[in-house]
Protein backbone atom coordinates (compact mmCIF):
# COMPACT_ATOMS: atom_id res chain seq x y z
CA UNK A 1 0.00 0.00 0.00
CA UNK A 2 1.28 3.40 -0.95
CA UNK A 3 1.55 5.93 1.85
CA UNK A 4 -0.52 9.09 1.62
CA UNK A 5 -0.13 12.62 2.95
CA UNK A 6 -2.80 14.59 4.86
CA UNK A 7 -3.56 16.36 1.55
CA UNK A 8 -4.12 13.22 -0.52
CA UNK A 9 -7.90 13.58 -0.71
CA UNK A 10 -7.52 17.23 -1.71
CA UNK A 11 -5.24 16.26 -4.61
CA UNK A 12 -7.56 13.53 -5.83
CA UNK A 13 -10.58 15.85 -5.61
CA UNK A 14 -8.66 18.45 -7.65
CA UNK A 15 -8.16 15.89 -10.43
CA UNK A 16 -4.42 15.50 -9.90
CA UNK A 17 -2.59 12.79 -11.78
CA UNK A 18 -1.20 10.64 -8.96
CA UNK A 19 2.03 8.62 -9.17
CA UNK A 20 4.16 6.55 -6.85
CA UNK A 21 7.08 8.52 -5.47
CA UNK A 22 9.33 6.68 -3.01
CA UNK A 23 6.36 4.64 -1.80
CA UNK A 24 4.03 7.65 -1.53
CA UNK A 25 1.00 8.29 -3.75
CA UNK A 26 1.74 11.87 -4.83
CA UNK A 27 0.43 14.37 -7.41
CA UNK A 28 2.70 14.66 -10.47
CA UNK A 29 0.53 17.39 -11.99
CA UNK A 30 -2.97 18.86 -11.85
CA UNK A 31 -3.22 19.26 -15.63
CA UNK A 32 -0.22 20.87 -17.26
CA UNK A 33 3.19 20.53 -15.65
CA UNK A 34 4.50 23.39 -17.80
CA UNK A 35 1.75 25.77 -16.68
CA UNK A 36 2.49 24.88 -13.06
CA UNK A 37 6.18 25.53 -13.69
CA UNK A 38 5.43 28.98 -15.16
CA UNK A 39 3.06 29.79 -12.27
CA UNK A 40 5.98 29.40 -9.85
CA UNK A 41 8.39 31.44 -11.99
CA UNK A 42 5.95 34.29 -12.60
CA UNK A 43 3.46 34.28 -9.70
CA UNK A 44 2.99 31.66 -6.97
CA UNK A 45 2.59 27.90 -6.80
CA UNK A 46 2.42 25.38 -3.96
CA UNK A 47 3.62 21.83 -3.43
CA UNK A 48 2.58 19.21 -0.93
CA UNK A 49 5.93 18.07 0.47
CA UNK A 50 4.46 16.27 3.48
CA UNK A 51 6.15 13.06 2.33
CA UNK A 52 9.41 14.54 3.53
CA UNK A 53 10.14 13.79 7.18
CA UNK A 54 10.74 16.36 9.90
CA UNK A 55 12.86 15.23 12.84
CA UNK A 56 13.40 17.05 16.12
CA UNK A 57 16.82 16.59 17.65
CA UNK A 58 17.04 17.89 21.20
CA UNK A 59 19.35 17.49 24.17
CA UNK A 60 22.54 18.77 25.74
CA UNK A 61 24.78 17.10 23.13
CA UNK A 62 22.74 18.16 20.09
CA UNK A 63 25.29 20.60 18.66
CA UNK A 64 28.28 18.36 19.31
CA UNK A 65 26.46 15.39 17.80
CA UNK A 66 25.39 17.22 14.62
CA UNK A 67 28.94 18.50 14.12
CA UNK A 68 29.98 14.86 13.82
CA UNK A 69 26.92 13.64 11.91
CA UNK A 70 26.87 16.27 9.16
CA UNK A 71 29.43 17.39 6.56
CA UNK A 72 28.39 21.02 6.92
CA UNK A 73 29.10 22.66 10.27
CA UNK A 74 26.11 23.55 12.47
CA UNK A 75 28.46 25.71 14.56
CA UNK A 76 27.78 28.34 11.88
CA UNK A 77 24.21 28.51 13.17
CA UNK A 78 24.03 31.01 15.99
CA UNK A 79 20.79 32.91 15.28
CA UNK A 80 17.55 31.10 16.21
CA UNK A 81 15.59 30.03 13.12
CA UNK A 82 18.64 29.88 10.83
CA UNK A 83 18.73 26.95 8.38
CA UNK A 84 21.67 25.08 6.87
CA UNK A 85 21.83 22.67 3.92
CA UNK A 86 24.09 19.65 4.48
CA UNK A 87 24.95 16.18 3.33
CA UNK A 88 25.00 13.30 5.79
CA UNK A 89 27.86 11.02 4.74
CA UNK A 90 28.82 7.43 5.42
CA UNK A 91 32.34 6.55 6.54
CA UNK A 92 33.38 6.09 2.90
CA UNK A 93 32.34 9.68 2.13
CA UNK A 94 29.25 8.66 0.14
CA UNK A 95 26.04 10.64 0.55
CA UNK A 96 23.40 8.93 2.74
CA UNK A 97 21.07 11.91 2.24
CA UNK A 98 20.97 15.66 1.83
CA UNK A 99 18.93 17.59 4.34
CA UNK A 100 18.07 20.93 5.89
CA UNK A 101 18.81 21.53 9.56
CA UNK A 102 17.19 24.42 11.46
CA UNK A 103 18.77 25.82 14.60
CA UNK A 104 16.55 27.04 17.43
CA UNK A 105 18.98 26.72 20.34
CA UNK A 106 22.23 24.85 21.00
CA UNK A 107 20.12 21.97 22.30
CA UNK A 108 17.18 22.23 19.86
CA UNK A 109 17.29 21.48 16.11
CA UNK A 110 14.78 20.51 13.41
CA UNK A 111 16.03 18.33 10.53
CA UNK A 112 14.09 17.73 7.31
CA UNK A 113 15.09 14.68 5.24
CA UNK A 114 13.98 13.15 1.93
CA UNK A 115 10.99 10.81 1.80
CA UNK A 116 12.77 7.97 0.02
CA UNK A 117 15.62 7.90 2.51
CA UNK A 118 13.74 8.72 5.72
CA UNK A 119 13.77 5.22 7.20
CA UNK A 120 17.46 4.62 6.56
CA UNK A 121 18.30 8.15 7.75
CA UNK A 122 16.57 7.62 11.09
CA UNK A 123 18.23 4.21 11.51
CA UNK A 124 21.63 5.73 10.73
CA UNK A 125 21.12 8.64 13.12
CA UNK A 126 19.98 6.35 15.93
CA UNK A 127 23.02 4.12 15.35
CA UNK A 128 25.35 7.13 15.52
CA UNK A 129 23.62 8.45 18.65
CA UNK A 130 24.14 5.08 20.34
CA UNK A 131 27.72 4.79 19.14
CA UNK A 132 28.58 8.26 20.47
CA UNK A 133 26.56 7.82 23.65
CA UNK A 134 25.16 11.26 22.85
CA UNK A 135 22.71 12.84 25.26
CA UNK A 136 20.10 13.65 22.60
CA UNK A 137 16.55 12.64 21.72
CA UNK A 138 15.50 12.11 18.10
CA UNK A 139 11.78 12.49 17.50
CA UNK A 140 10.30 11.69 14.06
CA UNK A 141 7.41 14.09 13.47
CA UNK A 142 5.03 12.02 11.37
CA UNK A 143 2.26 14.20 12.80
CA UNK A 144 3.27 17.19 10.64
CA UNK A 145 2.47 18.28 7.10
CA UNK A 146 4.60 20.50 4.87
CA UNK A 147 3.50 22.87 2.13
CA UNK A 148 6.02 24.76 -0.01
CA UNK A 149 4.67 28.05 -1.42
CA UNK A 150 7.05 29.35 -4.08
CA UNK A 151 7.25 32.20 -6.56
CA UNK A 152 7.70 35.98 -6.66
CA UNK A 153 4.22 36.51 -5.16
CA UNK A 154 4.38 33.51 -2.79
CA UNK A 155 5.05 35.44 0.40
CA UNK A 156 2.37 38.08 -0.21
CA UNK A 157 -0.22 35.41 -1.05
CA UNK A 158 0.76 33.40 2.03
CA UNK A 159 0.25 36.45 4.23
CA UNK A 160 -3.17 36.88 2.64
CA UNK A 161 -4.03 33.23 3.31
CA UNK A 162 -2.78 33.08 6.92
CA UNK A 163 -4.12 36.00 8.98
CA UNK A 164 -1.47 37.37 11.30
CA UNK A 165 1.43 35.66 9.54
CA UNK A 166 2.84 38.78 7.91
CA UNK A 167 4.11 40.48 11.03
CA UNK A 168 5.85 37.29 12.17
CA UNK A 169 7.44 36.36 8.83
CA UNK A 170 7.92 39.58 6.80
CA UNK A 171 11.30 40.16 8.43
CA UNK A 172 12.63 36.68 7.67
CA UNK A 173 15.76 36.68 5.54
CA UNK A 174 16.34 33.81 3.10
CA UNK A 175 17.18 30.58 4.93
CA UNK A 176 15.54 31.67 8.18
CA UNK A 177 12.42 30.27 9.85
CA UNK A 178 10.01 31.54 12.50
CA UNK A 179 7.43 29.79 14.62
CA UNK A 180 3.99 31.34 14.02
CA UNK A 181 1.49 29.68 16.34
CA UNK A 182 1.40 26.00 15.33
CA UNK A 183 3.26 26.68 12.11
CA UNK A 184 6.94 26.86 11.31
CA UNK A 185 7.32 29.29 8.41
CA UNK A 186 10.71 29.06 6.68
CA UNK A 187 11.95 31.23 3.83
CA UNK A 188 13.41 28.26 2.00
CA UNK A 189 12.54 26.21 -1.06
CA UNK A 190 13.59 24.02 -3.94
CA UNK A 191 12.67 26.11 -6.97
CA UNK A 192 15.12 29.01 -7.19
CA UNK A 193 12.30 31.42 -6.34
CA UNK A 194 11.42 33.32 -3.20
CA UNK A 195 8.80 31.77 -0.94
CA UNK A 196 8.06 29.80 2.18
CA UNK A 197 8.07 26.22 3.32
CA UNK A 198 5.37 25.87 5.97
CA UNK A 199 5.33 23.01 8.47
CA UNK A 200 2.10 22.54 10.41
CA UNK A 201 -0.03 19.93 12.21
CA UNK A 202 -1.38 17.44 9.68
CA UNK A 203 -5.01 18.12 10.54
CA UNK A 204 -4.63 21.80 9.59
CA UNK A 205 -3.06 21.15 6.18
CA UNK A 206 -6.27 20.85 4.08
CA UNK A 207 -7.60 24.18 5.40
CA UNK A 208 -4.31 25.95 4.67
CA UNK A 209 -4.22 24.41 1.17
CA UNK A 210 -7.73 25.73 0.50
CA UNK A 211 -6.87 29.16 1.89
CA UNK A 212 -3.78 29.34 -0.33
CA UNK A 213 -5.85 28.23 -3.33
CA UNK A 214 -8.35 31.00 -2.55
CA UNK A 215 -5.44 33.47 -2.35
CA UNK A 216 -4.49 32.56 -5.92
CA UNK A 217 -1.67 30.09 -5.33
CA UNK A 218 -1.59 27.40 -8.04
CA UNK A 219 -1.38 23.75 -6.90
CA UNK A 220 1.75 22.21 -8.46
CA UNK A 221 2.87 18.60 -8.68
CA UNK A 222 6.18 16.80 -8.41
CA UNK A 223 6.67 17.16 -12.18
CA UNK A 224 7.00 20.94 -11.97
CA UNK A 225 9.01 20.59 -8.77
CA UNK A 226 11.59 18.58 -10.74
CA UNK A 227 11.90 20.99 -13.70
CA UNK A 228 12.06 23.96 -11.32
CA UNK A 229 14.81 22.49 -9.16
CA UNK A 230 16.76 21.46 -12.26
CA UNK A 231 16.65 25.00 -13.67
CA UNK A 232 17.65 26.22 -10.19
CA UNK A 233 20.72 23.93 -10.21
CA UNK A 234 19.63 21.99 -7.13
CA UNK A 235 20.61 18.35 -6.71
CA UNK A 236 18.06 15.57 -6.29
CA UNK A 237 19.09 12.77 -3.95
CA UNK A 238 19.25 9.36 -5.61
CA UNK A 239 19.68 10.93 -9.01
CA UNK A 240 22.51 13.48 -8.80
CA UNK A 241 24.24 11.86 -5.83
CA UNK A 242 23.89 8.77 -3.66
CA UNK A 243 25.86 6.56 -1.28
CA UNK A 244 28.39 5.73 -3.99
CA UNK A 245 29.01 9.42 -4.83
CA UNK A 246 31.37 11.79 -3.10
CA UNK A 247 29.78 15.21 -2.56
CA UNK A 248 33.03 16.61 -3.98
CA UNK A 249 32.19 15.02 -7.35
CA UNK A 250 28.52 16.02 -7.21
CA UNK A 251 28.78 19.81 -7.12
CA UNK A 252 28.38 19.87 -3.35
CA UNK A 253 31.87 20.87 -2.19
CA UNK A 254 30.40 24.16 -0.98
CA UNK A 255 28.40 22.21 1.61
CA UNK A 256 31.41 20.31 3.01
CA UNK A 257 33.00 22.41 5.73
CA UNK A 258 36.65 21.50 6.38
CA UNK A 259 37.61 24.76 8.13
CA UNK A 260 37.71 23.37 11.66
CA UNK A 261 40.55 20.86 11.43
CA UNK A 262 39.48 19.30 14.73
CA UNK A 263 35.95 18.49 13.56
CA UNK A 264 36.07 14.77 12.72
CA UNK A 265 32.69 14.44 10.98
CA UNK A 266 31.70 11.07 9.53
CA UNK A 267 33.20 10.71 6.04
CA UNK A 268 35.79 13.45 6.47
CA UNK A 269 38.82 11.15 6.38
CA UNK A 270 37.54 9.49 3.21
CA UNK A 271 36.96 12.84 1.47
CA UNK A 272 40.41 14.10 2.42
CA UNK A 273 41.98 10.91 1.09
CA UNK A 274 40.11 11.14 -2.22
CA UNK A 275 39.97 14.68 -3.63
CA UNK A 276 37.49 15.54 -6.37
CA UNK A 277 38.10 14.00 -9.79
CA UNK A 278 34.89 15.26 -11.39
CA UNK A 279 32.74 18.37 -11.37
CA UNK A 280 29.07 19.05 -11.90
CA UNK A 281 28.36 21.40 -14.79
CA UNK A 282 25.20 22.42 -16.56
CA UNK A 283 24.61 21.42 -20.17
CA UNK A 284 22.48 23.26 -22.70
CA UNK A 285 21.67 21.23 -25.78
CA UNK A 286 22.58 23.09 -28.97
CA UNK A 287 20.53 20.82 -31.25
CA UNK A 288 16.95 19.60 -31.22
CA UNK A 289 16.18 16.96 -28.61
CA UNK A 290 15.80 16.47 -24.88
CA UNK A 291 18.57 15.69 -22.42
CA UNK A 292 17.83 12.98 -19.83
CA UNK A 293 19.65 11.32 -16.94
CA UNK A 294 22.37 8.75 -17.69
CA UNK A 295 23.36 9.93 -21.16
CA UNK A 296 27.04 9.65 -21.98
CA UNK A 297 28.96 12.91 -22.37
CA UNK A 298 32.10 13.16 -24.51
CA UNK A 299 34.56 15.97 -23.77
CA UNK A 300 38.16 16.81 -24.70
CA UNK A 301 39.12 15.93 -21.11
CA UNK A 302 37.39 12.54 -21.11
CA UNK A 303 33.92 11.07 -20.69
CA UNK A 304 31.19 12.01 -18.27
CA UNK A 305 27.50 11.39 -17.70
CA UNK A 306 24.31 13.38 -17.29
CA UNK A 307 22.68 12.83 -13.89
CA UNK A 308 19.44 14.79 -14.47
CA UNK A 309 17.99 16.26 -17.64
CA UNK A 310 14.78 17.74 -18.97
CA UNK A 311 13.25 20.26 -21.30
CA UNK A 312 13.46 23.61 -19.52
CA UNK A 313 10.10 25.41 -19.71
CA UNK A 314 11.77 28.74 -18.87
CA UNK A 315 14.63 28.50 -21.37
CA UNK A 316 12.65 26.52 -23.97
CA UNK A 317 15.58 24.20 -24.57
CA UNK A 318 16.97 20.98 -23.17
CA UNK A 319 19.17 21.23 -20.07
CA UNK A 320 21.02 18.75 -17.87
CA UNK A 321 23.44 18.33 -15.01
CA UNK A 322 26.56 16.49 -16.13
CA UNK A 323 29.28 14.92 -14.02
CA UNK A 324 32.39 15.49 -16.11
CA UNK A 325 36.18 15.45 -15.58
CA UNK A 326 37.67 18.45 -13.76
CA UNK A 327 39.45 19.60 -16.92
CA UNK A 328 36.23 20.55 -18.76
CA UNK A 329 35.86 24.33 -18.96
CA UNK A 330 32.62 26.29 -18.67
CA UNK A 331 31.60 27.48 -22.12
CA UNK A 332 33.09 24.54 -23.99
CA UNK A 333 31.22 22.39 -26.49
CA UNK A 334 30.76 18.72 -25.66
CA UNK A 335 28.81 15.87 -27.26
CA UNK A 336 25.99 13.90 -25.66
CA UNK A 337 24.86 10.47 -26.82
CA UNK A 338 21.09 10.63 -27.26
CA UNK A 339 19.75 7.29 -28.55
CA UNK A 340 22.91 6.57 -30.48
CA UNK A 341 23.32 10.04 -31.99
CA UNK A 342 25.95 12.44 -30.73
CA UNK A 343 24.45 15.91 -30.30
CA UNK A 344 26.36 19.07 -29.37
CA UNK A 345 25.85 20.76 -26.02
CA UNK A 346 27.48 23.73 -24.29
CA UNK A 347 28.73 23.57 -20.70
CA UNK A 348 27.46 26.30 -18.37
CA UNK A 349 27.83 27.22 -14.72
CA UNK A 350 24.83 26.26 -12.56
CA UNK A 351 22.15 27.43 -11.93
CA UNK A 352 20.33 27.96 -15.21
CA UNK A 353 17.58 30.18 -13.74
CA UNK A 354 17.25 32.15 -10.52
CA UNK A 355 14.41 34.44 -9.43
CA UNK A 356 12.66 34.16 -12.76
CA UNK A 357 15.75 35.20 -14.75
CA UNK A 358 17.74 33.07 -17.18
CA UNK A 359 21.40 33.11 -16.13
CA UNK A 360 22.89 31.44 -19.19
Amino acid at each position, binding site marked *: MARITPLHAVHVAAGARMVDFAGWDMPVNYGS*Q*IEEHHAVRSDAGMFDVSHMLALDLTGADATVFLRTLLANDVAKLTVPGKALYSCMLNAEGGVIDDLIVYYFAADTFRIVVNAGTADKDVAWMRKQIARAGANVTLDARGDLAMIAVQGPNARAKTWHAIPGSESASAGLKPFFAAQVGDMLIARTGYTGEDGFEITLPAAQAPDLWQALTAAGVAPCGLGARDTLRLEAGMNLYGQDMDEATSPLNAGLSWTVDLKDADRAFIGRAALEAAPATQQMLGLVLLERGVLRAHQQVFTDAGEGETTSGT*FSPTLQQAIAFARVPLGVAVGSTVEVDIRGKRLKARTVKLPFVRNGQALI
Partner: protein
Amino acid sequence: MNIPAELKYTKSHEWIRREDDGTVTVGITDHAQEALGDIVFLDLPEAGRMVAAGEECAVVESVKAASDIYAPVAGEIIAANDDAVDAPESVNADAYANWLFKLKPANAADVDALLDAAAYADIAADN
Protein backbone atom coordinates in the same frame (compact mmCIF):
# COMPACT_ATOMS: atom_id res chain seq x y z
CA MET B 1 -11.69 8.22 -22.60
CA ASN B 2 -11.61 9.57 -26.16
CA ILE B 3 -11.21 6.55 -28.50
CA PRO B 4 -12.81 7.25 -31.90
CA ALA B 5 -14.68 4.17 -33.18
CA GLU B 6 -13.54 4.55 -36.80
CA LEU B 7 -9.81 4.22 -36.07
CA LYS B 8 -7.55 1.21 -35.59
CA TYR B 9 -5.13 0.95 -32.63
CA THR B 10 -2.04 -0.79 -31.29
CA LYS B 11 -1.22 -2.05 -27.81
CA SER B 12 1.56 0.55 -27.73
CA HIS B 13 -1.02 3.38 -27.96
CA GLU B 14 -0.75 4.42 -31.60
CA TRP B 15 -3.91 5.16 -33.63
CA ILE B 16 -4.14 4.34 -37.34
CA ARG B 17 -6.53 5.85 -39.88
CA ARG B 18 -7.05 4.21 -43.29
CA GLU B 19 -7.05 6.75 -46.11
CA ASP B 20 -8.88 6.37 -49.45
CA ASP B 21 -5.62 5.96 -51.36
CA GLY B 22 -4.61 2.88 -49.34
CA THR B 23 -2.09 4.70 -47.13
CA VAL B 24 -2.47 5.05 -43.35
CA THR B 25 -2.03 8.01 -41.02
CA VAL B 26 -0.52 7.31 -37.59
CA GLY B 27 -0.57 9.24 -34.32
CA ILE B 28 -0.67 8.61 -30.57
CA THR B 29 -3.92 8.18 -28.67
CA ASP B 30 -5.49 10.68 -26.31
CA HIS B 31 -4.77 8.24 -23.50
CA ALA B 32 -1.08 8.24 -24.49
CA GLN B 33 -0.76 12.02 -24.64
CA GLU B 34 -2.40 12.34 -21.24
CA ALA B 35 -0.07 9.78 -19.70
CA LEU B 36 2.98 11.47 -21.22
CA GLY B 37 2.08 14.98 -20.07
CA ASP B 38 3.31 18.14 -21.78
CA ILE B 39 4.93 17.10 -25.07
CA VAL B 40 7.98 19.18 -25.96
CA PHE B 41 9.80 17.32 -28.74
CA LEU B 42 9.00 15.00 -31.65
CA ASP B 43 11.56 13.04 -33.63
CA LEU B 44 9.75 11.73 -36.71
CA PRO B 45 10.91 9.37 -39.48
CA GLU B 46 12.01 10.60 -42.90
CA ALA B 47 9.89 9.93 -45.95
CA GLY B 48 11.21 6.98 -47.92
CA ARG B 49 12.27 4.93 -44.90
CA MET B 50 11.15 1.28 -44.98
CA VAL B 51 9.93 0.04 -41.61
CA ALA B 52 8.99 -3.36 -40.20
CA ALA B 53 5.89 -3.86 -38.09
CA GLY B 54 6.74 -2.96 -34.49
CA GLU B 55 9.94 -1.14 -35.46
CA GLU B 56 10.82 1.96 -33.42
CA CYS B 57 10.46 4.78 -35.90
CA ALA B 58 9.66 7.94 -33.92
CA VAL B 59 10.15 9.43 -30.46
CA VAL B 60 7.74 11.59 -28.50
CA GLU B 61 9.29 13.40 -25.55
CA SER B 62 7.38 15.12 -22.79
CA VAL B 63 8.92 17.12 -19.96
CA LYS B 64 8.67 13.88 -18.01
CA ALA B 65 10.02 11.17 -20.30
CA ALA B 66 10.87 9.93 -23.78
CA SER B 67 8.54 7.43 -25.41
CA ASP B 68 9.23 5.33 -28.51
CA ILE B 69 6.62 5.18 -31.26
CA TYR B 70 6.38 1.97 -33.28
CA ALA B 71 5.38 1.35 -36.89
CA PRO B 72 1.96 -0.34 -36.60
CA VAL B 73 2.48 -2.31 -39.82
CA ALA B 74 5.34 -2.87 -42.26
CA GLY B 75 5.67 -0.42 -45.12
CA GLU B 76 7.21 2.79 -46.38
CA ILE B 77 7.08 6.13 -44.56
CA ILE B 78 5.64 8.65 -47.02
CA ALA B 79 5.32 11.78 -44.86
CA ALA B 80 6.02 13.22 -41.40
CA ASN B 81 3.96 15.98 -39.82
CA ASP B 82 6.34 18.95 -39.75
CA ASP B 83 3.62 21.18 -38.25
CA ALA B 84 3.52 18.93 -35.19
CA VAL B 85 7.34 18.99 -34.98
CA ASP B 86 7.18 22.79 -34.84
CA ALA B 87 4.39 22.73 -32.22
CA PRO B 88 4.69 19.48 -30.21
CA GLU B 89 2.10 20.73 -27.70
CA SER B 90 -0.53 20.43 -30.45
CA VAL B 91 -0.48 16.66 -29.85
CA ASN B 92 -1.63 17.29 -26.26
CA ALA B 93 -4.35 19.61 -27.49
CA ASP B 94 -5.77 17.13 -30.03
CA ALA B 95 -3.99 13.82 -30.40
CA TYR B 96 -6.25 12.64 -33.25
CA ALA B 97 -6.01 15.78 -35.40
CA ASN B 98 -2.27 16.11 -34.98
CA TRP B 99 -0.87 12.99 -36.61
CA LEU B 100 2.80 12.00 -36.59
CA PHE B 101 3.49 10.21 -39.88
CA LYS B 102 1.89 8.58 -42.93
CA LEU B 103 2.82 5.14 -44.12
CA LYS B 104 2.15 3.02 -47.21
CA PRO B 105 1.51 -0.51 -45.89
CA ALA B 106 3.37 -3.35 -47.57
CA ASN B 107 0.28 -5.48 -47.10
CA ALA B 108 -3.19 -3.89 -46.75
CA ALA B 109 -4.51 -6.84 -44.78
CA ASP B 110 -2.03 -6.06 -41.96
CA VAL B 111 -4.12 -2.99 -41.11
CA ASP B 112 -7.28 -5.08 -40.71
CA ALA B 113 -5.54 -7.16 -38.07
CA LEU B 114 -4.90 -4.16 -35.78
CA LEU B 115 -7.04 -3.55 -32.68
CA ASP B 116 -10.46 -1.98 -33.00
CA ALA B 117 -11.66 0.75 -30.63
CA ALA B 118 -13.33 -1.65 -28.18
CA ALA B 119 -10.23 -3.83 -27.87
CA TYR B 120 -8.03 -0.77 -27.37
CA ALA B 121 -10.39 0.66 -24.74
CA ASP B 122 -9.82 -2.50 -22.67
CA ILE B 123 -6.05 -2.06 -22.90
CA ALA B 124 -6.14 1.66 -22.10
CA ALA B 125 -8.39 1.04 -19.09
CA ASP B 126 -5.79 -1.35 -17.68
CA ASN B 127 -3.02 1.21 -17.59
